[in-house]
């Protein structure tokens, strides 16, 4: 367990190697990166074994001294961080292998993998970090890598804009996180996460301050996990290469926010208002994104909104006190969402098309992609026995227990929506008639389909670890829930499970009618509900709102400041300081008349002045 730090360290080494000698390394550096993450994945199993055998531990090494404070760098090895280690290394490994196929022939291949290494290093450090400063540094690095990878094809203006938008939007949340960390530091005098949590639960910090700190920290999570109103960057982030979307914007980076709330969960539990705030934001987010996912026609955009919606669900779970449910959903969603993104990449790679209405019937040509996509889509929709069903069910259970019936009903609506948009996507792209122009497409190469299958298997069966018998077989007593320190092991709530299954079947029925049988034709529905459709297509006009604010307020203010800088500071201050002596000299020189008597008069006047000054 003390070697847990090696996992991110190997990726750092890979990054440096690729940065310096990328092109001369085997496979242009791809295999170095993959080996580093692969080794990390292997080490994860050792760390997991250690954890199960010996229990939790933290390791800390002194870093440097600032003022009177000794900054540390260290790792926490507990079920949460180890679970995150597992998903990050596994999905990163699969995505990198997939990228070997997807990014084949790309000129800046080495830099792509270098950025992947840096991202992996940062994300792994984030989940292991034992103090807030280390966490924050990793947090920012992850944001940087997101920027680099979204804007990978920087000759495309859309990609540049998207990268900027992602970075700036998450940065706004990061400010909140930093202030929250500092508020806690002011109260406890330490940056160590565990010490701060102990202080919070021990009642050493008064509730008002705790609430403020918790909400500020949540702001950071809102930014990274694309919660309302910071969700706007994620759909645009689809401009990046699809494997990047799969890794960063489905399974890992956006999960960092959820992880943060999970890591600081005792803090939120001690400040119930903050927890409810988390719930509300999550609920708004999931409904907002779920409704938008129903009308979008770009393959990856639908998936992006789906991600936002599921992240909202995770926050809903956490906000209702369901720590295990939220983290469990993080894991199942991570596998399934990464899979659907990679599937989308596979389709994009083969057909070159990203509009879902240009596709259709692809199961005939791309059977592996289609099969794995079916598994993942059903998992995300929440059909048993796939993994998504178990985690979604857990979420529904905690909401039912912890929140009012109205909120529960809304979460049920959100769950229904999540089934509907996923099934819509599945039916429109992979089923139905095959269009003539797509008749020539073929399945993707093995290096891309093997990761699909691996993730498919996990999407199918991972959920079963929630069950007691499975968990015990794996050495986790009490099932996964207890592994994550849930309050109780998993009890099947048959009514709820039946109800949610019924919901999925309802969604299946509706979407099959609309998109397979095409009666009524969905376009008819669109025409009937045109104003609503318009609202959703325009993303509730939020992007326009933000753009207006930026143009009218921020840019106007910047123009004002620029004007001040130009006229006052530059023209008057800097240039003026130069022109003043010239001007003064040009006008004062007329005192030098050259005439002796003028000078004599000046001497006389000066002498009189001195005498007067001395006399008075």
């Amino acid at each position, binding site marked *: 367990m003390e070697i847990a730090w090696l996992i991110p360290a190997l990726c750092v080494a890979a990054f440096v190697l690729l940065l310096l000698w990328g092109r001369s390394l085997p496979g242009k550096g791809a295999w170095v990166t993959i080996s580093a993450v692969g080794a990390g994945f292997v080490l994860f199993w050792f760390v997991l074994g250690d954890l199960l055998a010996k229990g939790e531990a933290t390791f800390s090494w002194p870093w440097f001294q600032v003022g009177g404070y000794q900054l540390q760098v260290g790792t926490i090895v507990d079920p949460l961080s180890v679970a995150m280690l597992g998903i990050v290394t596994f999905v990163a490994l699969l995505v990198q292998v997939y990228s070997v196929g997807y990014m084949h022939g790309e000129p800046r291949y080495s830099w792509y993998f270098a950025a992947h290494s840096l991202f992996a290093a940062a994300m792994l450090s984030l989940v292991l970090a034992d103090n807030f400063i280390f966490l924050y540094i990793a947090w920012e690095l992850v944001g940087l890598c997101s920027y680099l990878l979204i804007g990978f094809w920087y000759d495309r203006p859309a990609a540049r804009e998207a990268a900027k938008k992602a970075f700036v939007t998450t940065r706004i949340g990061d400010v909140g996180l930093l202030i929250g960390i500092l508020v806690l530091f002011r109260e406890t005098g330490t940056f160590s996460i565990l010490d701060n949590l102990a202080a919070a639960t021990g009642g050493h910090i008064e509730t008002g301050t705790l609430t403020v700190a918790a909400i500020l920290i949540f702001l950071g999570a809102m930014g990274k996990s694309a919660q309302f109103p910071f969700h706007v960057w994620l759909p645009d982030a689809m401009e990046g290469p699809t494997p990047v979307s799969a890794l960063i914007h489905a399974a890992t980076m956006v999960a960092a926010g959820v992880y943060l709330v999970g890591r600081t969960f005792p803090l939120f539990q001690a400040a119930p208002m903050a927890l409810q705030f988390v719930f509300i934001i999550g609920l708004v987010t999931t409904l907002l994104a779920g409704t938008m996912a129903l009308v979008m026609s770009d393959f990856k955009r639908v998936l992006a909104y789906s991600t936002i919606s599921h992240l909202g669900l995770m926050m809903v779970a956490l906000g209702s006190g369901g720590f295990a449910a939220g983290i469990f959903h993080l894991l199942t969603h991570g596998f399934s969402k990464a899979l659907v993104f990679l599937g989308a990449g596979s389709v994009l790679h083969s057909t070159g098309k990203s509009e879902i209405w240009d596709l259709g019937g692809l199961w005939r040509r791309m059977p592996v992609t289609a099969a794995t996509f079916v598994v993942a889509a059903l998992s995300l929709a929440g059909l048993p026995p796939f993994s998504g069903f178990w985690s979604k069910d857990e979420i529904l259970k905690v909401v039912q227990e912890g929140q009012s019936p109205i909120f529960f009903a809304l979460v049920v609506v959100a769950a229904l929506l999540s089934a509907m948009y996923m099934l819509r996507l599945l039916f429109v792209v992979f089923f139905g008639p095959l269009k003539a122009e797509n008749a020539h497409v073929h399945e993707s190469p093995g290096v891309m389909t093997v990761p699909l299958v691996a993730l498919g298997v996990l999407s199918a069966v991972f959920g079963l670890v929630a069950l007691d018998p499975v968990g015990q077989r794996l050495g986790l007593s009490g099932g996964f829930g207890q592994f994550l320190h849930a309050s109780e092991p998993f009890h099947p709530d048959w009514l709820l499970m039946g109800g949610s299954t019924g919901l999925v079947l309802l969604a299946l029925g509706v979407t099959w009618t609309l998109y397979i049988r095409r009666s009524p034709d969905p376009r008819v529905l669109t025409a009937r509900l045109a104003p609503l459709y318009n609202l959703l297509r325009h993303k509730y006009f939020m992007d326009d709102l933000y753009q207006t604010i930026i143009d009218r307020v921020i840019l106007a203010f910047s123009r004002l400041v620029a004007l001040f800088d130009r006229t006052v500071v530059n023209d008057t201050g800097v240039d003026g300081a130069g022109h003043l002596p010239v001007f003064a000299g040009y006008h004062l*020189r*007329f005192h*030098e*008349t*050259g*005439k*002796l*008597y003028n000078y*004599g*008069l000046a001497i*006389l006047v000066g002498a009189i002045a001195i005498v007067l000054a001395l006399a008075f």
Partner: protein
Amino acid sequence: MIPLEHFLTLSGILFSLGLFGVLARRNAVLILMSIELMLNAVNINLVAFSAYLVSTEFVGQVFALFVIVVAAAEVGLALSIIIAIYRSRATSNVDEVDLMKW
């Protein structure tokens, strides 16, 4: 005894006359003469104060000797300058020697 104030008045008048001459005269030699007049006025002042206020010591008179010596040296120097200017510019009118101007 002539009161001290008379000497001081004399000295003041002479100084003012000299000052007027320095500022108002065009001929360089006349300006020099006015300077001399100012210096002599100062001498009168010094000697008067010394004789009337501290009659046992001769501080003022000794200082007046110094002033005379300085005046003499200065006149020699000034006349050389005037001659040099006259040789190059053929004029002793200070109004016309104004090259060091804007």
